[in-house]
Structure formats: structure tokens, C-alpha cells
């Protein structure tokens, strides 16, 4: 039976061999045929020579999570061949270079081998060694267009657009594509029973990664200063900010740049620049990952205590220490929430899609200005660096930036008393002034040392405690400002909590559980501190699962600590291998909990 638009294909390549461009083109071609797709680049911390994989999930059902079973393997790396063959599901298809005959390591007879003499085809057509290497990738792309019934014109159009201006590259690329395609049509059974066809599912959606969407959000949110230090997987966000700002923020008449980007000497300096700019009234951000957050904790404490707006994007990767720099995790939750010594805590945002990266990035600048404190946007490698089908980005032109409580010279002239840290409105947030505002009023000294309501240094116990308590009152205000959890509840017995990229496999997971007679209410956390709806959800469910991608159940710890819950009120489902979590994994864990505890299901399922 033929299936359409429903498979996982994995490309096994050698890093630095030019495969990324061909594989990216494959994913984009399917997207252009209107098919929902999600891509995953599983790459080493290396520039050339080590194994790398690229996975595309093609799903008319819009299941975008990783699936451990691979339907089609394009095995182009001899070093990982055995492992790649093993990862195919029974009945899956193995595309390999058959120039040297069938590899004896292809020991499975439950998969369908599809040998293509790629090297031999290339050898007779191209003489340049570099081209021979690069066009291998293009040849297998050509083979796949036939095997999967991909609209060939979509791919050839993409080649023409991609090499616009370098016309001499267009013809050899198209030639290589046609070589693969015609070989497949002549010698292979095409198309396979799993294939693609044009779809109408996408509507106006886009194919984008979270870092690029977040960078655009920073531009739309009015960020003028980006200070950063290169670190995987956050680098592409700073680079995307530069790319888009160079188009969207350059005055066409004067060629002035309405933005400033500083590649700092380290993460400490990156956040220092952001804080200096925030103190002086410009919207500024940094993008980093766990090791950078570790270095930034000193400045995070200063910004918390001195109450300076700042926005940080933590594109999380697998820790601790250098950990697995090119693998994904959600393991900085506690480090970010309580970063720095003394009594500190910081608002966190948890985007789960590129569209949300854009929205939360733009909103984070409003939150930082409103709350006069650092806001950390907790993305991760999976969300930040992989292109996925996402809602299109939207902007309301009537929207005004919320610059928070900032006094101008007229305000100061009309005031009797100015105290930088006076809580006049009862929301724990004082009014601030920017340097240079008024010749004689409103100046104050910003410091990381203790001070009274008028910003004067003090070690008085009462003044110190009062200030610390006001910061807690501001924390309460934060709960009303930040996005609340998204809850879908039908008053079921059990619920499941997730956040960030653990949301990606969730629709598939819920459908799979449903088939097993288990229905779950859901709550997606979008921010810390948690609003009252979070406690309510947990209180209202007898069984509560929490899905996270870290070893120590960090979000659960944060919740039990902040909401004064019994740790046993939440059952953790933890994946921390560094690949993105799959629906199968979550389903297995939930089923095993039900079995172990003899919990009846809604319907009986024959096993």
C-alpha cells in the first residue's frame, strides 16, 4: 500500500563534505510542495571529517517530533555505515553508493537495499576533485526525486535561485541532479511505496529555525544593541540579527545603521555591554548558551539588584561544562532561574516554536523594561538551529513599545520627590531616569551594593530588608505581566506538563496514548515565575506528568520549590541523551507508569 507524506528520512554524511546544502534543499523542496516538514541536523562539534546526520520528518499529520525509527536511510558515510543500517526500521529503504559493490556490513535482509553507483557516475562526468565530492550529494538528491516522486521543477528552481549571480554553477548542479534522476528511472523501481505528493496543509506557514525567528523578534522589538560571544548553538542568532538588521535597519538615505553589534571578548563583557546599554536606555540583548550563562551570573546578579533591563537568549545545549556542544537539552533551567549569588531570581520565557521565538523575543524587551530586570528566553539547540514548519510571523502596526517607568525632564520638574527605588505604585517597581535627562533633578548612583529608596548606600538592616522585600513584590507583579501557561483541560484524572521543545512531539504523543486508552489534560509552561493557573492544574489532577530534557528534573524542582509542592505530586519523564525527545519515549514512560501502578485506562486495549 502506498503512503503519502509520512516518513522519516535520514542522511548520513561526513561533516564538511557539502551535504548540508543538498540536504537542506531536500527539506525545503518538500515544504515548497506544501508538505509539513521538520528537519534536524545532528552534527558533531567539528568542522570537517566527523560523522553528521540530517533527518527530515515528513508528516501530513504535522507530527514534528523526532521519531527513532527511520524509514529511509541515505548512507553516505562508510564510517557509520553499520550503525546507519541498524537504525532503519524493518522494511525500510537503504540508499547507498554501490560503486564498490554491496557492502558486506549490509547484513540485514529485512531492509530494501537501493544501490546507486554514485562515485562511478560522478567520476565520468566531473574532473575537479572538489566538484566530485560536492556533486555526490546532488546526485543522491536527484535519485530521491525519482524514488519519492518529488516535483523535479521545484528542485531545479531552487538551484537556479540559490546560485543566482553564480550562473556557472547552475548547469553542473542541474546536470548532477538529472544524472541521479535518470539513473533511478532507468534502474530502480520508482517511486517507492512511501512517497510525497503536493499538499494544501501549509496555508501561509513558513520554514524557519528558532534563532532566526528570535533575531527578527529582537529587531521588531526595538533592540538596537547586540553584544555576544560566539558559542554553539546561539551563534546563528547573533548572525541572523546582523543579516536582517543590515536589511531592515539601515537608513536608505543616510546609510546609517540603526543598530550596533559587538562581538565581545567573552560572555562577561557581552552581558556587561548589554547592561551598560540598558542602564542608558537602549534595548540590548545577548545570545549565548549554558557555559555563557555560567560566566554571566555575576552580571545577572548586578542587573537583578541594580534593576536594569536586559534580555538574554539562552540557546541551551547538553551540559554540564562543555558537555555535548552540538546536542540539545533543557538543562539550564535552574542555573538561569537562580543565576548569581545572594537571593536572586530571574523571569524566564519558554518558547516552543519559531513563531513563539519571534513573539517572545519582541515581548521580552517590553517585559525587561516594565520589570526593570533581566529576562532570559530559554530556547535550545533543537528549536534554535533546526528549520521547522512554523506559523508565519505577525506584527501589529498599532503596537507601542512598553518602555516601562522612565521619567523625562518634564516629569521630574513636576515631581516633588524622586526616589529611584521608591515603590509609589505598589507594584514593587520604582521610576528610573536615564543619564543626561535633567540638569539638576533625577540623577542617582546605580550600584550593586545595598542602598535605600533614594539610591544612597546603606547597610541599615531595615532599609536592606525593605528593598529585598520590594524585589519580591516586583516578582509578584511579574506573574501578572508574563505569559500564562497554556492549559487544555477536560477535567481528566491525569495531566501532562511540558515546555519548550518537549512540546514538539506532544500532539503525536497524545494521539498515541489515546489509542492506548489514556487521555491526558495538558499544560504548557510559557514563563517563570508561575502564575496561579499552574498550581491549580497540578492540584486538579491526581496524576501529573512532567516531561523534560534534563537528568535532574529541573523544572519539577523549580515548581516544587516555588509552589511549595510535594515532590511526589509530579511524575518526571526525563530524556537527556542529547537528541530531541521523541513521542515513543514519552508514551513508553507513561504506559510503564500506568502498568506499574495498576491504573485503569479509559478503554481496554488489546495488547
Amino acid at each position, binding site marked *: 500500500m502506498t503512503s503519502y507524506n509520512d516518513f522519516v528520512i535520514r542522511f548520513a554524511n561526513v561533516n564538511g563534505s557539502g551535504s548540508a546544502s543538498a540536504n537542506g534543499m531536500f527539506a525545503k523542496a518538500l515544504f515548497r510542495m506544501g508538505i509539513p516538514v521538520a528537519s534536524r541536523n545532528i552534527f558533531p562539534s567539528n568542522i570537517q571529517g566527523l560523522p553528521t546526520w540530517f533527518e527530515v520528518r515528513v508528516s501530513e499529520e504535522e507530527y514534528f517530533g523526532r521519531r527513532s525509527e527511520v524509514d529511509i536511510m541515505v548512507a553516505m558515510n562508510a564510517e557509520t555505515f553499520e550503525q546507519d543500517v541498524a537504525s532503519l526500521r524493518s522494511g525500510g529503504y537503504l540508499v547507498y553508493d554501490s560503486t564498490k559493490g554491496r557492502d558486506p556490513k549490509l547484513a540485514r535482509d529485512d531492509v530494501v537495499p537501493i544501490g546507486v553507483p554514485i562515485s562511478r557516475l560522478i567520476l565520468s562526468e566531473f574532473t575537479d576533485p572538489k566538484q566530485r565530492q560536492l556533486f555526490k550529494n546532488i546526485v543522491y538528491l536527484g535519485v530521491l526525486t525519482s524514488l519519492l516522486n518529488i516535483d523535479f521543477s521545484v528542485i531545479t528552481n531552487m538551484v537556479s535561485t540559490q546560485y543566482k549571480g553564480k550562473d556557472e554553477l547552475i548547469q553542473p548542479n542541474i546536470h548532477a541532479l538529472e544524472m541521479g534522476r535518470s539513473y533511478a528511472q532507468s534502474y530502480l523501481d520508482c517511486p517507492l511505496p512511501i512517497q510525497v505528493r503536493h499538499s494544501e496543509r501549509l496555508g501561509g506557514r513558513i520554514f524557519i529555525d528558532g534563532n532566526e525567528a528570535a533575531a527578527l523578534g529582537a*529587531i521588531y522589538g526595538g533592540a*538596537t544593541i547586540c*553584544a555576544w560571544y560566539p558559542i554553539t548553538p546561539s551563534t546563528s542568532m547573533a548572525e541572523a540579527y546582523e543579516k536582517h538588521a543590515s536589511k*531592515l535597519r539601515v537608513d536608505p538615505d543616510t546609510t546609517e545603521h540603526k543598530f550596533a553589534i559587538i562581538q565581545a571578548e567573552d560572555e562577561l563583557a557581552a552581558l556587561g555591554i548589554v547592561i551598560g546599554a540598558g542602564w542608558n536606555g537602549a534595548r540590548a540583548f545577548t545570545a549565548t548558551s549554558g557555559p555563557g550563562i555560567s560566566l554571566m551570573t555575576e*552580571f545577572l546578579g548586578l542587573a537583578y539588584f541594580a534593576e536594569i533591563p536586559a534580555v538574554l537568549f539562552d540557546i541551551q545545549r547538553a551540559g554540564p561544562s562543555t558537555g555535548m556542544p552540538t546536542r540539545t537539552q533543557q538543562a539550564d533551567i535552574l542555573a538561569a532561574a537562580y543565576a548569581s549569588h545572594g537571593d536572586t531570581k530571574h523571569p524566564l520565557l519558554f518558547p516552543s516554536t519559531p513563531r513563539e521565538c519571534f513573539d517572545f523575543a519582541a515581548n521580552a524587551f517590553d517585559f525587561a523594561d516594565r520589570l526593570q530586570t533581566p529576562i532570559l528566553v530559554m530556547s535550545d539547540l533543537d528549536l534554535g538551529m533546526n528549520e521547522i514548519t512554523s506559523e508565519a510571523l505577525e506584527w501589529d502596526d498599532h503596537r507601542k513599545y512598553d518602555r516601562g517607568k522612565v521619567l523625562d525632564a518634564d516629569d521630574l520638574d513636576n515631581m516633588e520627590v524622586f526616589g529611584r527605588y521608591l515603590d509609589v505604585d505598589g507594584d514593587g517597581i520604582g521610576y528610573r531616569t536615564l*543619564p543626561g535627562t535633567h540638569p*539638576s533633578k533625577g540623577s542617582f*548612583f546605580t550600584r550593586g551594593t545595598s542602598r535605600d529608596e533614594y539610591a544612597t548606600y546603606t547597610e541599615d538592616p531595615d532599609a536592606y530588608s525593605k528593598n529585598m522585600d520590594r524585589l519580591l513584590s516586583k516578582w509578584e507583579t511579574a506573574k501578572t505581566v508574563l505569559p500564562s501557561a497554556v492549559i487544555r483541560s477536560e477535567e481528566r484524572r491525569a495531566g501532562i506538563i511540558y515546555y519548550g521543545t518537549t512540546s514538539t512531539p506532544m500532539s503525536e504523543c497524545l494521539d498515541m496514548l489515546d489509542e492506548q486508552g489514556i487521555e491526558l489534560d495538558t499544560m504548557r509552561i510559557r514563563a517563570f515565575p508561575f502564575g496561579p493557573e499552574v498550581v491549580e492544574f497540578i492540584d486538579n489532577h491526581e496524576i501529573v506528568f512532567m516531561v523534560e530534557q534534563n537528568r535532574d528534573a529541573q523544572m519539577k524542582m523549580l515548581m516544587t520549590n516555588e509552589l511549595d509542592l510535594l515532590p511526589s505530586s509530579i511524575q518526571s519523564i526525563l530524556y537527556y541523551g542529547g537528541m530531541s525527545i521523541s513521542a515513543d519515549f514519552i508514551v513508553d514512560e507513561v504506559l510503564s507508569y500506568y502498568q506499574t501502578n495498576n491504573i485503569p485506562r479509559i478503554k481496554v486495549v488489546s495488547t
Partner: protein
Amino acid sequence: MTFVAKPKVHHPLLQFNEIGLTRRDYEGAVSTLCAGCGHDSVSAAVAMACNELAIPPHRFAKISGIGCSSKTPSYFLGASHGFNSVHGRMPSVATGANLANHELHCIGVSGDGDSASIGVGQFAHIVRRKVNMLYIVDNNGTYGLTKGQFSATNDRGSTSKRGVPNLYSPIDLVSMALQIGASFVARSFSGDKQQLVPLIKAAIMHKGFAFIDVISPCVMFNNHNGSTKSYQYVREHTASMVDAQLVMPHEQIEIEYAPGTLKEVDMPDGSVLRLRKISESYDPHDRVGALNHVQRAQEQGDVITGLLYVDLIASDIHEVLETPSKPLNKLSEADLCPGSEALTAVNASFR
């Protein structure tokens, strides 16, 4: 320790500057440093320089790190905003503040512990970045607030109060600044107001990164016989190379220096920088020569003071980044947000 606040009455003999302010308007809170601390003289010199330049005090932004020196921005320019940040990180905070609003005059105050040890990396990089600011190091060779440990600028062989010699090589921030490319580099002595005030004025008006290393003795922990950062040692071993006198474009001040020893330099803003050459052979526009001179003198135990190097056509970070004439912190939604129409095109590029 308690202090009596200074009364805000106007003494009839106090002179007004061109914008109708007196030196009192450039003062700050009462210092809490030790009596006789060199740093207080530096603060007074900064206040005097700003008064003489007749720049409104609120048009300055004062930024510091941590330590005795970093406390001092409280003690001058009380009408301007100050930011006492974290140890060794003043340069990054100053960079951000300057990026946000290039119209404010940025004064950074740091110490030798702050800039030559914990913040040596940030010091090096702010020099590279050409931030338009005055960066002062109150250099006393010791950690005052933690009671007298050696700092990295302390000369080898210089002794602590207890007589223990320093065994490690010093870091010379002036040499570093010259080598990395600062466009204005000077050294002075906190006790030499005649030299320091004009240097500060010239540094504030200099467009680019201006560095002044001020030897500023610590009366508590580093002002004894074995110290090379004591009042006595510095007075005995100072060799002044170049004195700077900044003359504003509209001023008609004649400086009475003997002919042949005065060098007038036209500044890009129309003002004139007058350099008094004590040594005829010294050229303040020769970076390599300056570096040589400083290091030779150091070998002999001499402290070279004065304006050691200035590049009069220097550029700053805003020129490099091509930022608008309107400060970034004054740009509104209309300037910054590309709007929904542009977003439609952005979306299309992702299909």
C-alpha cells in the same frame, strides 16, 4: 565615620564658568576615602576640568568597577548619573552606555586591581574598540579595600608595608594602551594638579579612547619608604615629557611658555591643543617612540608623566559601526520597527 554635609551656599568669591555654574556644581558627595588619599585629588581634578570646560554636569556618565578608585565617581559631578558596576567590568558597561548614547561624555574610573588584574582582559578590549571616553586608572599599586595586598602594577622589588618585597613583574597599563592602539595615552600624578587638570580636559575633548594612568599613592598601605608608588618616590623620580593645555576654540588664552618649547596642535573640533615639550626630541604623535620611551624610563626607575601619545584624527566606535547621529536610545518605534509590510516580505523569504 560620619561626615557633615557641605553647605550649599554660594561664596561671593566663587567664579562662574561660561554656563553660569561654579566649581561647587561639579562636586559630588563627601568622600569616604582615607584622609590624604591620592584618589580624592584625582576626583577634584576631574571636577575642576569639567568646570573649566563648562560642560553641564548632567551631560556626563560616570562608570566604575569595584575598589577604592571605583567609589570615587560618587565624589565628583553629583548632578550626573553614575554606575558603580562589578569588579573589573567597567569597560564593558561603559561600552554599552556609550553605544546607547554617544552624546554623553563618558568617564570611567578604575583602579590597578580593577584594570590590571581582574579586568585586564576588558581593559585590553575596550582599547581595541575605540570607545569615546576618558578612562582613568587611580594607580596605587595596592589593594586598599582589602588592606594592602600587592596589585599587578606594583614594581618588582617594591616592598609592602611590612617590608616584604614584590617578586613579580609589573603590568604597565600605559604600555598596554599604547601597544593596543589607544588614541590618547597619558600618565600623571595625583599630587600634580597643574599637569593633571589640563590632561583630563584634553582627554574629555579627545574623540576616541583616552587613557590616563594616574599614580595615586595609598596613604594607608603603599606610602612607605620601600614603595615605588609613594608620594616621595614619585616626586623624586618623575620626568615630565609633555604637558598638555587645551584651548577651546572661543577662548583667547595666551600661555606663557618659552618660545620653542610650545607646540600648538589644531584639534578637529577647532580647539587648540598646546603641548609643552620638555624634551625637544619627544614626539607625542609617535606611538612606537612613546612605547620605547616609557619602557626605557621604567628600566631606570623613572616615571614618565605627561601626554605620551595622541592621535588627533582618531575615530571612535560609532564611526566604525556607522550608527546614526541621533543616539540609539532616542530612536522610537518608527525608527526601529520595520512594520508588518516588511514582515510579509520576510515571511515570503522563508517559503
